[in-house]
Protein backbone atom coordinates (compact mmCIF):
# COMPACT_ATOMS: atom_id res chain seq x y z
CA UNK A 1 0.00 0.00 0.00
CA UNK A 2 1.23 3.48 -0.90
CA UNK A 3 0.53 6.80 0.80
CA UNK A 4 1.26 10.02 -1.08
CA UNK A 5 1.58 13.19 0.98
CA UNK A 6 1.12 16.49 -0.84
CA UNK A 7 3.51 19.10 0.52
CA UNK A 8 4.18 22.70 -0.32
CA UNK A 9 6.93 25.19 0.15
CA UNK A 10 5.64 28.44 1.64
CA UNK A 11 7.25 31.71 2.68
CA UNK A 12 8.43 31.58 6.26
CA UNK A 13 5.79 33.04 8.58
CA UNK A 14 8.35 35.55 9.83
CA UNK A 15 8.84 37.03 6.35
CA UNK A 16 6.43 39.75 5.33
CA UNK A 17 4.27 38.66 2.40
CA UNK A 18 3.55 40.95 -0.50
CA UNK A 19 2.07 41.04 -3.96
CA UNK A 20 4.53 41.70 -6.76
CA UNK A 21 2.87 44.72 -8.44
CA UNK A 22 4.37 43.88 -11.85
CA UNK A 23 2.80 40.41 -12.03
CA UNK A 24 -0.14 40.57 -9.62
CA UNK A 25 1.08 37.36 -8.00
CA UNK A 26 2.23 36.55 -4.52
CA UNK A 27 5.92 37.35 -4.24
CA UNK A 28 7.30 33.95 -3.28
CA UNK A 29 10.90 35.04 -2.86
CA UNK A 30 12.45 35.30 0.60
CA UNK A 31 12.90 32.57 3.19
CA UNK A 32 10.98 29.39 2.45
CA UNK A 33 9.89 26.53 4.58
CA UNK A 34 7.74 23.41 4.47
CA UNK A 35 4.10 24.39 5.05
CA UNK A 36 3.65 23.78 8.80
CA UNK A 37 0.26 22.11 8.20
CA UNK A 38 1.94 19.56 5.91
CA UNK A 39 4.14 18.27 8.73
CA UNK A 40 0.94 16.99 10.37
CA UNK A 41 0.04 15.14 7.15
CA UNK A 42 3.46 13.46 7.04
CA UNK A 43 3.18 12.54 10.70
CA UNK A 44 -0.28 11.04 10.05
CA UNK A 45 1.21 8.96 7.22
CA UNK A 46 4.05 7.79 9.47
CA UNK A 47 1.64 6.80 12.24
CA UNK A 48 -0.46 4.78 9.76
CA UNK A 49 2.70 3.07 8.48
CA UNK A 50 4.05 2.36 11.97
CA UNK A 51 0.63 1.48 13.42
CA UNK A 52 0.43 -1.62 11.24
CA UNK A 53 -3.36 -1.67 10.76
CA UNK A 54 -2.70 -0.87 7.11
CA UNK A 55 0.17 -2.57 5.29
CA UNK A 56 1.92 0.62 4.17
CA UNK A 57 4.98 -0.13 2.04
CA UNK A 58 5.85 3.37 1.07
CA UNK A 59 5.26 7.03 1.94
CA UNK A 60 5.92 9.37 -0.97
CA UNK A 61 6.13 13.18 -0.64
CA UNK A 62 4.83 15.03 -3.70
CA UNK A 63 5.13 18.70 -4.50
CA UNK A 64 4.62 21.12 -7.35
CA UNK A 65 6.77 24.21 -7.47
CA UNK A 66 9.98 25.88 -8.64
CA UNK A 67 13.42 24.30 -8.26
CA UNK A 68 13.75 25.58 -4.68
CA UNK A 69 10.80 23.39 -3.66
CA UNK A 70 13.19 20.45 -3.33
CA UNK A 71 14.00 21.86 0.13
CA UNK A 72 10.42 21.20 1.23
CA UNK A 73 10.72 17.65 -0.14
CA UNK A 74 13.97 17.09 1.75
CA UNK A 75 12.29 18.26 4.95
CA UNK A 76 9.41 15.87 4.24
CA UNK A 77 11.83 13.00 3.68
CA UNK A 78 13.72 13.86 6.89
CA UNK A 79 10.36 13.52 8.68
CA UNK A 80 9.98 9.98 7.38
CA UNK A 81 8.90 9.88 3.72
CA UNK A 82 10.70 7.15 1.76
CA UNK A 83 11.11 9.15 -1.44
CA UNK A 84 9.78 12.22 -3.17
CA UNK A 85 8.39 13.48 -6.48
CA UNK A 86 8.91 17.03 -7.70
CA UNK A 87 6.63 18.35 -10.43
CA UNK A 88 8.30 21.41 -11.85
CA UNK A 89 7.68 23.21 -15.12
CA UNK A 90 7.65 26.83 -16.23
CA UNK A 91 4.26 26.12 -17.81
CA UNK A 92 2.78 25.58 -14.32
CA UNK A 93 3.81 28.95 -12.87
CA UNK A 94 0.88 31.07 -11.75
CA UNK A 95 -1.69 28.26 -11.89
CA UNK A 96 -4.88 28.94 -9.92
CA UNK A 97 -6.51 26.45 -7.52
CA UNK A 98 -8.23 24.69 -10.40
CA UNK A 99 -5.01 24.34 -12.43
CA UNK A 100 -2.86 23.37 -9.44
CA UNK A 101 -5.31 20.69 -8.30
CA UNK A 102 -5.52 19.30 -11.82
CA UNK A 103 -1.72 19.17 -12.20
CA UNK A 104 -1.27 17.49 -8.81
CA UNK A 105 -3.96 14.96 -9.72
CA UNK A 106 -1.99 14.07 -12.87
CA UNK A 107 1.19 13.38 -10.86
CA UNK A 108 -0.80 11.35 -8.37
CA UNK A 109 -2.46 9.34 -11.15
CA UNK A 110 1.00 8.21 -12.21
CA UNK A 111 1.79 7.15 -8.61
CA UNK A 112 -1.58 5.39 -8.11
CA UNK A 113 -1.66 5.83 -4.30
CA UNK A 114 -4.09 4.09 -1.95
CA UNK A 115 -4.27 7.19 0.20
CA UNK A 116 -3.47 10.85 -0.41
CA UNK A 117 -2.86 13.00 2.68
CA UNK A 118 -2.39 16.75 2.84
CA UNK A 119 -2.46 19.59 5.36
CA UNK A 120 -5.83 21.29 5.61
CA UNK A 121 -4.51 24.67 4.58
CA UNK A 122 -1.35 26.39 3.56
CA UNK A 123 0.11 29.36 5.36
CA UNK A 124 0.37 31.50 2.24
CA UNK A 125 -2.65 31.35 -0.08
CA UNK A 126 -5.04 29.74 2.41
CA UNK A 127 -6.14 27.38 -0.35
CA UNK A 128 -7.61 24.67 1.82
CA UNK A 129 -9.56 23.55 -1.18
CA UNK A 130 -6.86 21.66 -3.08
CA UNK A 131 -7.85 18.31 -1.54
CA UNK A 132 -11.39 18.56 -2.90
CA UNK A 133 -10.15 19.49 -6.39
CA UNK A 134 -7.64 16.61 -6.46
CA UNK A 135 -10.27 14.14 -5.19
CA UNK A 136 -12.76 15.02 -7.91
CA UNK A 137 -10.13 14.48 -10.63
CA UNK A 138 -9.04 11.17 -9.10
CA UNK A 139 -12.67 10.11 -8.45
CA UNK A 140 -11.83 9.32 -4.83
CA UNK A 141 -13.87 10.04 -1.69
CA UNK A 142 -12.53 13.01 0.23
CA UNK A 143 -12.79 14.76 3.58
CA UNK A 144 -11.05 17.88 4.92
CA UNK A 145 -10.14 19.11 8.42
CA UNK A 146 -9.82 15.57 9.77
CA UNK A 147 -8.49 15.45 13.35
CA UNK A 148 -8.60 11.70 14.03
CA UNK A 149 -8.04 8.70 11.76
CA UNK A 150 -8.61 5.10 12.83
CA UNK A 151 -8.33 2.10 10.55
CA UNK A 152 -11.42 -0.09 10.64
CA UNK A 153 -11.93 -3.07 8.29
CA UNK A 154 -9.53 -1.58 5.75
CA UNK A 155 -11.37 1.74 5.67
CA UNK A 156 -10.70 4.99 7.56
CA UNK A 157 -12.90 6.11 10.40
CA UNK A 158 -12.41 9.89 10.39
CA UNK A 159 -13.50 12.58 12.81
CA UNK A 160 -13.76 16.24 12.02
CA UNK A 161 -15.47 19.40 13.09
CA UNK A 162 -18.07 20.75 10.65
CA UNK A 163 -20.85 23.35 10.86
CA UNK A 164 -22.93 21.65 13.52
CA UNK A 165 -20.39 19.89 15.72
CA UNK A 166 -18.18 16.82 15.32
CA UNK A 167 -18.88 14.39 12.49
CA UNK A 168 -17.64 10.81 12.25
CA UNK A 169 -17.33 9.57 8.68
CA UNK A 170 -16.25 6.18 7.30
CA UNK A 171 -14.15 6.65 4.18
CA UNK A 172 -13.27 3.79 1.83
CA UNK A 173 -9.82 3.64 0.25
CA UNK A 174 -8.42 4.94 -2.02
CA UNK A 175 -9.19 8.38 -0.63
CA UNK A 176 -7.96 11.96 -0.29
CA UNK A 177 -7.83 13.22 3.31
CA UNK A 178 -6.84 16.72 4.48
CA UNK A 179 -5.77 16.71 8.11
CA UNK A 180 -6.11 19.44 10.71
CA UNK A 181 -3.29 20.46 13.01
CA UNK A 182 -4.97 18.85 16.05
CA UNK A 183 -4.48 15.37 14.57
CA UNK A 184 -0.99 14.86 16.01
CA UNK A 185 2.25 16.41 17.26
CA UNK A 186 4.73 16.12 14.40
CA UNK A 187 8.04 14.54 15.40
CA UNK A 188 11.33 16.37 15.07
CA UNK A 189 13.66 14.93 12.46
CA UNK A 190 16.82 13.32 13.84
CA UNK A 191 20.17 14.67 12.72
CA UNK A 192 20.75 11.37 10.95
CA UNK A 193 17.46 11.72 9.09
CA UNK A 194 18.31 15.27 8.05
CA UNK A 195 21.73 14.17 6.77
CA UNK A 196 20.26 11.16 5.00
CA UNK A 197 17.40 13.07 3.33
CA UNK A 198 19.48 14.15 0.36
CA UNK A 199 20.32 10.54 -0.44
CA UNK A 200 16.70 9.37 -0.73
CA UNK A 201 15.33 9.12 -4.30
CA UNK A 202 13.86 12.31 -5.73
CA UNK A 203 12.04 12.06 -9.09
CA UNK A 204 11.83 15.26 -11.11
CA UNK A 205 8.83 15.36 -13.43
CA UNK A 206 7.88 17.86 -16.10
CA UNK A 207 4.29 18.66 -17.08
CA UNK A 208 4.67 16.53 -20.21
CA UNK A 209 6.05 13.61 -18.19
CA UNK A 210 2.75 13.17 -16.38
CA UNK A 211 0.50 14.08 -19.32
CA UNK A 212 -0.65 17.51 -18.20
CA UNK A 213 -2.73 19.37 -20.77
CA UNK A 214 -0.90 22.73 -21.07
CA UNK A 215 -4.16 24.58 -21.81
CA UNK A 216 -5.37 23.86 -18.25
CA UNK A 217 -2.43 25.22 -16.27
CA UNK A 218 -0.34 28.36 -15.82
CA UNK A 219 -1.19 31.99 -15.23
CA UNK A 220 -2.57 32.64 -18.72
CA UNK A 221 -4.98 29.74 -18.41
CA UNK A 222 -6.17 30.49 -14.89
CA UNK A 223 -9.97 30.21 -14.85
CA UNK A 224 -10.06 32.66 -11.97
CA UNK A 225 -7.97 35.69 -12.74
CA UNK A 226 -6.81 38.00 -9.94
CA UNK A 227 -6.40 41.64 -10.82
CA UNK A 228 -6.67 45.17 -9.40
CA UNK A 229 -5.20 44.83 -5.96
CA UNK A 230 -6.58 47.47 -3.67
CA UNK A 231 -6.06 48.42 -0.07
CA UNK A 232 -9.07 47.78 2.18
CA UNK A 233 -10.65 50.72 4.02
CA UNK A 234 -8.05 51.97 6.48
CA UNK A 235 -8.66 51.03 10.09
CA UNK A 236 -7.32 53.17 12.90
CA UNK A 237 -4.33 51.25 14.25
CA UNK A 238 -4.79 50.03 17.80
CA UNK A 239 -2.68 51.00 20.77
CA UNK A 240 0.20 48.61 21.54
CA UNK A 241 1.76 48.07 24.97
CA UNK A 242 5.02 46.14 25.27
CA UNK A 243 4.92 44.44 28.65
CA UNK A 244 8.03 45.35 30.60
CA UNK A 245 6.69 46.02 34.08
CA UNK A 246 3.58 43.84 34.42
CA UNK A 247 2.07 45.90 37.28
CA UNK A 248 2.29 48.98 35.10
CA UNK A 249 0.90 47.11 32.07
CA UNK A 250 -2.08 45.87 34.06
CA UNK A 251 -2.73 49.38 35.37
CA UNK A 252 -2.83 50.66 31.79
CA UNK A 253 -5.22 47.89 30.69
CA UNK A 254 -7.57 48.60 33.60
CA UNK A 255 -7.52 52.34 32.84
CA UNK A 256 -8.23 51.62 29.16
CA UNK A 257 -11.17 49.34 30.05
CA UNK A 258 -12.49 51.81 32.63
CA UNK A 259 -12.39 54.69 30.12
CA UNK A 260 -14.67 52.66 27.86
CA UNK A 261 -17.00 51.86 30.76
CA UNK A 262 -16.27 48.14 30.44
CA UNK A 263 -15.74 47.64 34.17
CA UNK A 264 -19.14 48.90 35.30
Amino acid sequence: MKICVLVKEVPDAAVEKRIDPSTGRLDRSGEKNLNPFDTHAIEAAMQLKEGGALAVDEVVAVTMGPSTATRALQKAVSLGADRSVHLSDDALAGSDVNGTGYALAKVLEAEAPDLVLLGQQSDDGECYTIGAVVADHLAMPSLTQVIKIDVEDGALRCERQAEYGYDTVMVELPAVISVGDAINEPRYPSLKAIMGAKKKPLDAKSAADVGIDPSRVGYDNARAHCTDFAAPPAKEPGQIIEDEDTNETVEKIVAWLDERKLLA
Partner: protein
Amino acid sequence: MSAILVYALHYDGAFNKNSLGAVSEGAKLASELGTECHAIVVGEGVSDELASSLGNYGASKVYRVEGPEGLAQPVVDAMAAAIEAGGHSYALFGGGLLGFEIGAGLAARLDAGVCMEVTNVRVEDGKLVAERPILQDSQISSVHYRSKVGVIIGRLNAFEINETGGTATVEDLAVEFRPHSLKAKMVSRGEQRGADVNIEDADVLVAGGRGLGKKEGFDMLEELAGALGGAVAATRAVVDAGWYSYSAQIGQTGKTVAPKLYLAAGISGAIQHKVGMQASENIVAINKDSNAPIFEFSDLGIVGDLNKIVPKLTEAVKAKKS
Protein backbone atom coordinates in the same frame (compact mmCIF):
# COMPACT_ATOMS: atom_id res chain seq x y z
CA MET B 1 -29.96 31.95 -19.31
CA SER B 2 -27.09 32.98 -17.05
CA ALA B 3 -28.83 32.24 -13.75
CA ILE B 4 -27.11 31.92 -10.37
CA LEU B 5 -27.29 28.63 -8.45
CA VAL B 6 -26.93 28.83 -4.66
CA TYR B 7 -26.26 25.86 -2.40
CA ALA B 8 -28.43 25.89 0.72
CA LEU B 9 -27.13 23.82 3.63
CA HIS B 10 -29.71 22.58 6.12
CA TYR B 11 -29.61 20.59 9.34
CA ASP B 12 -32.34 19.48 11.69
CA GLY B 13 -35.10 21.14 9.67
CA ALA B 14 -33.54 24.59 9.32
CA PHE B 15 -31.29 26.32 6.82
CA ASN B 16 -27.85 27.57 7.75
CA LYS B 17 -27.69 31.35 8.28
CA ASN B 18 -24.79 31.69 5.88
CA SER B 19 -26.75 29.83 3.21
CA LEU B 20 -29.74 32.16 3.65
CA GLY B 21 -27.33 35.09 3.27
CA ALA B 22 -25.97 33.54 0.08
CA VAL B 23 -29.49 33.06 -1.35
CA SER B 24 -30.25 36.73 -0.56
CA GLU B 25 -26.99 37.81 -2.19
CA GLY B 26 -27.66 35.58 -5.21
CA ALA B 27 -31.13 37.12 -5.64
CA LYS B 28 -29.72 40.64 -5.45
CA LEU B 29 -27.00 39.89 -8.03
CA ALA B 30 -29.44 38.03 -10.29
CA SER B 31 -31.74 41.03 -10.42
CA GLU B 32 -28.78 43.27 -11.35
CA LEU B 33 -27.83 40.80 -14.09
CA GLY B 34 -31.45 40.50 -15.25
CA THR B 35 -31.59 36.79 -14.50
CA GLU B 36 -32.89 34.43 -11.81
CA CYS B 37 -31.53 33.04 -8.58
CA HIS B 38 -32.08 29.32 -8.01
CA ALA B 39 -31.24 27.32 -4.92
CA ILE B 40 -30.42 23.64 -4.44
CA VAL B 41 -31.08 21.47 -1.40
CA VAL B 42 -29.69 17.97 -0.98
CA GLY B 43 -31.02 15.76 1.78
CA GLU B 44 -33.18 12.94 2.99
CA GLY B 45 -36.89 13.66 2.71
CA VAL B 46 -36.66 17.47 2.49
CA SER B 47 -40.21 18.80 2.92
CA ASP B 48 -41.99 21.06 0.40
CA GLU B 49 -42.34 23.61 3.15
CA LEU B 50 -38.63 23.74 3.95
CA ALA B 51 -37.51 23.80 0.30
CA SER B 52 -40.02 26.45 -0.80
CA SER B 53 -39.16 28.67 2.18
CA LEU B 54 -36.06 29.76 0.23
CA GLY B 55 -38.44 31.82 -1.93
CA ASN B 56 -38.68 34.20 1.00
CA TYR B 57 -34.98 35.01 0.49
CA GLY B 58 -35.29 35.59 -3.26
CA ALA B 59 -34.89 32.19 -4.93
CA SER B 60 -37.39 31.72 -7.77
CA LYS B 61 -36.78 27.98 -8.06
CA VAL B 62 -35.46 25.36 -5.65
CA TYR B 63 -33.97 22.10 -6.89
CA ARG B 64 -34.63 19.34 -4.39
CA VAL B 65 -32.31 16.34 -4.58
CA GLU B 66 -32.73 13.18 -2.51
CA GLY B 67 -29.28 12.25 -1.21
CA PRO B 68 -26.95 11.91 1.76
CA GLU B 69 -26.59 14.88 4.11
CA GLY B 70 -23.51 16.55 5.55
CA LEU B 71 -20.99 15.40 2.92
CA ALA B 72 -19.68 17.42 0.01
CA GLN B 73 -19.26 15.06 -2.91
CA PRO B 74 -22.93 14.06 -3.41
CA VAL B 75 -23.70 17.79 -3.58
CA VAL B 76 -21.02 18.26 -6.26
CA ASP B 77 -22.84 15.65 -8.37
CA ALA B 78 -26.19 17.32 -7.67
CA MET B 79 -25.00 20.81 -8.56
CA ALA B 80 -23.25 19.62 -11.71
CA ALA B 81 -26.54 17.99 -12.78
CA ALA B 82 -28.56 21.13 -11.97
CA ILE B 83 -26.13 23.34 -13.91
CA GLU B 84 -26.27 20.97 -16.86
CA ALA B 85 -30.07 21.17 -16.81
CA GLY B 86 -30.36 24.89 -16.06
CA GLY B 87 -27.29 26.39 -17.74
CA HIS B 88 -26.33 28.47 -14.72
CA SER B 89 -23.34 30.78 -15.07
CA TYR B 90 -22.44 31.02 -11.40
CA ALA B 91 -22.48 28.77 -8.35
CA LEU B 92 -22.60 30.66 -5.05
CA PHE B 93 -21.89 29.45 -1.48
CA GLY B 94 -22.18 31.09 1.92
CA GLY B 95 -19.30 30.79 4.38
CA GLY B 96 -18.62 27.47 6.07
CA LEU B 97 -16.71 24.23 5.69
CA LEU B 98 -19.02 22.32 3.33
CA GLY B 99 -19.24 25.23 0.90
CA PHE B 100 -15.47 25.19 0.51
CA GLU B 101 -15.40 21.47 -0.20
CA ILE B 102 -18.37 21.49 -2.56
CA GLY B 103 -17.26 24.62 -4.40
CA ALA B 104 -13.74 23.30 -4.96
CA GLY B 105 -15.02 19.89 -6.11
CA LEU B 106 -17.50 21.56 -8.46
CA ALA B 107 -14.76 23.76 -9.93
CA ALA B 108 -12.74 20.63 -10.73
CA ARG B 109 -15.78 18.90 -12.24
CA LEU B 110 -16.74 21.84 -14.47
CA ASP B 111 -13.19 23.11 -15.14
CA ALA B 112 -14.40 26.35 -13.58
CA GLY B 113 -12.66 29.26 -11.92
CA VAL B 114 -13.13 29.34 -8.16
CA CYS B 115 -12.60 32.06 -5.59
CA MET B 116 -12.98 31.54 -1.86
CA GLU B 117 -13.17 33.84 1.19
CA VAL B 118 -15.18 36.28 -0.94
CA THR B 119 -16.42 39.32 0.99
CA ASN B 120 -18.16 41.18 -1.82
CA VAL B 121 -19.46 40.48 -5.32
CA ARG B 122 -20.03 43.21 -7.89
CA VAL B 123 -21.52 43.33 -11.38
CA GLU B 124 -19.21 44.56 -14.13
CA ASP B 125 -20.08 44.47 -17.86
CA GLY B 126 -22.84 41.95 -17.22
CA LYS B 127 -20.51 39.63 -15.30
CA LEU B 128 -19.83 38.93 -11.66
CA VAL B 129 -16.50 39.95 -10.15
CA ALA B 130 -15.57 38.49 -6.76
CA GLU B 131 -13.62 40.51 -4.22
CA ARG B 132 -11.35 38.61 -1.88
CA PRO B 133 -9.15 39.99 0.89
CA ILE B 134 -5.69 38.43 0.83
CA LEU B 135 -2.46 38.53 2.84
CA GLN B 136 -4.10 38.81 6.27
CA ASP B 137 -6.69 41.18 4.79
CA SER B 138 -4.03 43.77 3.92
CA GLN B 139 -5.15 43.85 0.28
CA ILE B 140 -8.31 43.10 -1.66
CA SER B 141 -8.02 41.42 -5.03
CA SER B 142 -10.70 41.32 -7.71
CA VAL B 143 -11.25 37.97 -9.32
CA HIS B 144 -12.60 37.75 -12.86
CA TYR B 145 -13.91 34.45 -14.17
CA ARG B 146 -12.71 33.17 -17.52
CA SER B 147 -14.69 29.94 -17.53
CA LYS B 148 -18.24 29.02 -18.54
CA VAL B 149 -19.21 28.76 -14.87
CA GLY B 150 -17.75 30.82 -12.04
CA VAL B 151 -17.67 29.42 -8.49
CA ILE B 152 -17.97 31.99 -5.69
CA ILE B 153 -17.43 30.87 -2.08
CA GLY B 154 -18.28 33.51 0.50
CA ARG B 155 -16.48 34.23 3.72
CA LEU B 156 -18.39 33.56 6.93
CA ASN B 157 -21.06 36.26 7.50
CA ALA B 158 -20.13 38.05 4.26
CA PHE B 159 -23.66 38.06 2.86
CA GLU B 160 -26.60 39.67 4.61
CA ILE B 161 -29.92 37.91 4.95
CA ASN B 162 -32.77 39.75 3.24
CA GLU B 163 -36.37 38.54 3.39
CA THR B 164 -38.25 39.42 0.22
CA GLY B 165 -41.56 37.69 0.90
CA GLY B 166 -41.23 35.93 -2.47
CA THR B 167 -42.19 32.38 -3.33
CA ALA B 168 -40.29 29.60 -5.05
CA THR B 169 -41.31 26.58 -7.07
CA VAL B 170 -39.81 23.28 -5.97
CA GLU B 171 -38.40 21.02 -8.69
CA ASP B 172 -37.34 17.47 -7.88
CA LEU B 173 -34.10 16.58 -9.61
CA ALA B 174 -33.04 12.94 -9.85
CA VAL B 175 -29.27 12.64 -9.59
CA GLU B 176 -27.19 9.59 -10.27
CA PHE B 177 -24.35 9.88 -7.79
CA ARG B 178 -20.85 8.94 -8.90
CA PRO B 179 -19.49 5.81 -7.19
CA HIS B 180 -16.78 7.74 -5.29
CA SER B 181 -19.36 10.19 -3.93
CA LEU B 182 -20.97 7.38 -1.95
CA LYS B 183 -17.73 5.93 -0.56
CA ALA B 184 -17.70 8.32 2.39
CA LYS B 185 -20.55 7.56 4.78
CA MET B 186 -21.73 9.60 7.72
CA VAL B 187 -21.61 7.57 10.94
CA SER B 188 -22.68 10.34 13.29
CA ARG B 189 -23.22 14.03 12.69
CA GLY B 190 -23.17 17.14 14.85
CA GLU B 191 -21.80 15.61 18.05
CA GLN B 192 -21.40 18.28 20.75
CA ARG B 193 -18.20 17.91 22.76
CA GLY B 194 -17.75 19.41 26.21
CA ALA B 195 -20.24 21.30 28.34
CA ASP B 196 -22.97 23.36 26.74
CA VAL B 197 -22.11 27.00 27.38
CA ASN B 198 -23.80 30.15 26.13
CA ILE B 199 -21.39 32.71 24.78
CA GLU B 200 -23.65 34.49 22.33
CA ASP B 201 -25.45 36.62 24.93
CA ALA B 202 -22.34 37.64 26.88
CA ASP B 203 -21.29 41.31 26.89
CA VAL B 204 -17.73 40.32 27.73
CA LEU B 205 -15.84 37.36 26.29
CA VAL B 206 -12.40 36.19 27.33
CA ALA B 207 -11.13 33.90 24.59
CA GLY B 208 -8.19 31.51 24.69
CA GLY B 209 -6.05 29.95 21.96
CA ARG B 210 -3.07 27.70 21.51
CA GLY B 211 -0.82 30.29 23.18
CA LEU B 212 -2.25 29.18 26.54
CA GLY B 213 0.09 26.23 26.18
CA LYS B 214 -2.11 23.72 28.00
CA LYS B 215 -5.68 22.89 28.89
CA GLU B 216 -5.21 24.20 32.44
CA GLY B 217 -4.52 27.65 30.99
CA PHE B 218 -8.29 28.05 30.70
CA ASP B 219 -8.58 28.08 34.51
CA MET B 220 -7.09 31.57 34.69
CA LEU B 221 -9.30 32.73 31.81
CA GLU B 222 -12.36 31.50 33.74
CA GLU B 223 -11.22 33.63 36.67
CA LEU B 224 -10.66 36.71 34.52
CA ALA B 225 -14.02 36.21 32.80
CA GLY B 226 -15.63 35.87 36.23
CA ALA B 227 -14.08 39.14 37.40
CA LEU B 228 -15.19 40.93 34.23
CA GLY B 229 -18.70 39.44 34.44
CA GLY B 230 -18.33 37.59 31.15
CA ALA B 231 -17.91 34.14 29.65
CA VAL B 232 -15.01 32.17 28.17
CA ALA B 233 -14.64 31.40 24.46
CA ALA B 234 -12.07 29.41 22.47
CA THR B 235 -10.44 28.92 19.07
CA ARG B 236 -10.91 25.85 16.87
CA ALA B 237 -7.36 24.66 17.50
CA VAL B 238 -7.86 24.30 21.25
CA VAL B 239 -11.37 22.86 20.89
CA ASP B 240 -10.03 20.23 18.47
CA ALA B 241 -7.26 19.55 21.00
CA GLY B 242 -9.91 18.88 23.66
CA TRP B 243 -8.98 21.83 25.90
CA TYR B 244 -12.39 23.49 25.84
CA SER B 245 -16.05 23.00 24.84
CA TYR B 246 -17.11 23.08 21.22
CA SER B 247 -20.12 25.22 22.17
CA ALA B 248 -17.69 28.02 23.14
CA GLN B 249 -15.85 28.02 19.83
CA ILE B 250 -15.59 31.18 17.74
CA GLY B 251 -15.07 31.29 13.98
CA GLN B 252 -15.46 29.39 10.71
CA THR B 253 -17.13 26.25 12.07
CA GLY B 254 -18.14 27.79 15.39
CA LYS B 255 -20.07 30.82 16.61
CA THR B 256 -20.09 34.41 15.49
CA VAL B 257 -20.11 36.95 18.31
CA ALA B 258 -20.05 40.72 18.76
CA PRO B 259 -19.67 41.46 22.49
CA LYS B 260 -18.84 44.85 24.00
CA LEU B 261 -15.42 43.50 24.99
CA TYR B 262 -13.51 40.64 23.40
CA LEU B 263 -10.27 39.84 25.20
CA ALA B 264 -8.12 37.39 23.25
CA ALA B 265 -5.37 35.57 25.13
CA GLY B 266 -2.80 33.55 23.21
CA ILE B 267 -4.75 33.81 19.95
CA SER B 268 -2.78 34.52 16.78
CA GLY B 269 -5.83 35.86 14.92
CA ALA B 270 -6.07 33.62 11.84
CA ILE B 271 -8.76 34.58 9.32
CA GLN B 272 -10.91 31.59 10.37
CA HIS B 273 -11.07 33.06 13.88
CA LYS B 274 -11.28 36.71 12.88
CA VAL B 275 -14.46 36.20 10.84
CA GLY B 276 -16.27 35.08 13.98
CA MET B 277 -15.39 38.03 16.24
CA GLN B 278 -14.32 41.04 14.19
CA ALA B 279 -17.61 42.85 14.85
CA SER B 280 -16.82 43.04 18.60
CA GLU B 281 -16.97 46.63 19.92
CA ASN B 282 -13.63 46.56 21.74
CA ILE B 283 -10.90 44.03 21.02
CA VAL B 284 -8.02 43.53 23.45
CA ALA B 285 -5.28 41.05 22.56
CA ILE B 286 -2.51 39.56 24.69
CA ASN B 287 0.14 37.66 22.75
CA LYS B 288 3.87 37.15 23.16
CA ASP B 289 4.46 37.32 19.40
CA SER B 290 4.51 40.98 18.29
CA ASN B 291 3.97 39.79 14.68
CA ALA B 292 0.68 38.01 15.50
CA PRO B 293 -2.01 39.06 12.99
CA ILE B 294 -4.45 39.77 15.84
CA PHE B 295 -2.57 43.01 16.59
CA GLU B 296 -3.63 44.23 13.13
CA PHE B 297 -7.26 44.37 14.20
CA SER B 298 -7.18 44.79 17.97
CA ASP B 299 -7.93 48.13 19.64
CA LEU B 300 -5.50 47.45 22.48
CA GLY B 301 -2.64 45.01 22.01
CA ILE B 302 -0.37 43.78 24.76
CA VAL B 303 2.86 42.10 23.73
CA GLY B 304 3.83 39.92 26.64
CA ASP B 305 3.50 36.67 28.57
CA LEU B 306 -0.16 35.96 29.32
CA ASN B 307 0.79 33.74 32.26
CA LYS B 308 2.19 36.81 34.00
CA ILE B 309 -0.40 39.34 32.82
CA VAL B 310 -3.74 37.50 33.13
CA PRO B 311 -3.60 36.65 36.89
CA LYS B 312 -2.55 40.19 37.78
CA LEU B 313 -5.20 41.64 35.50
CA THR B 314 -7.83 39.50 37.24
CA GLU B 315 -6.75 40.88 40.65
CA ALA B 316 -6.70 44.45 39.35
CA VAL B 317 -10.16 44.14 37.80
CA LYS B 318 -11.54 42.69 41.05
CA ALA B 319 -9.94 45.51 43.05
CA LYS B 320 -11.29 48.18 40.69
CA LYS B 321 -14.81 46.75 40.83
CA SER B 322 -15.02 46.36 44.60
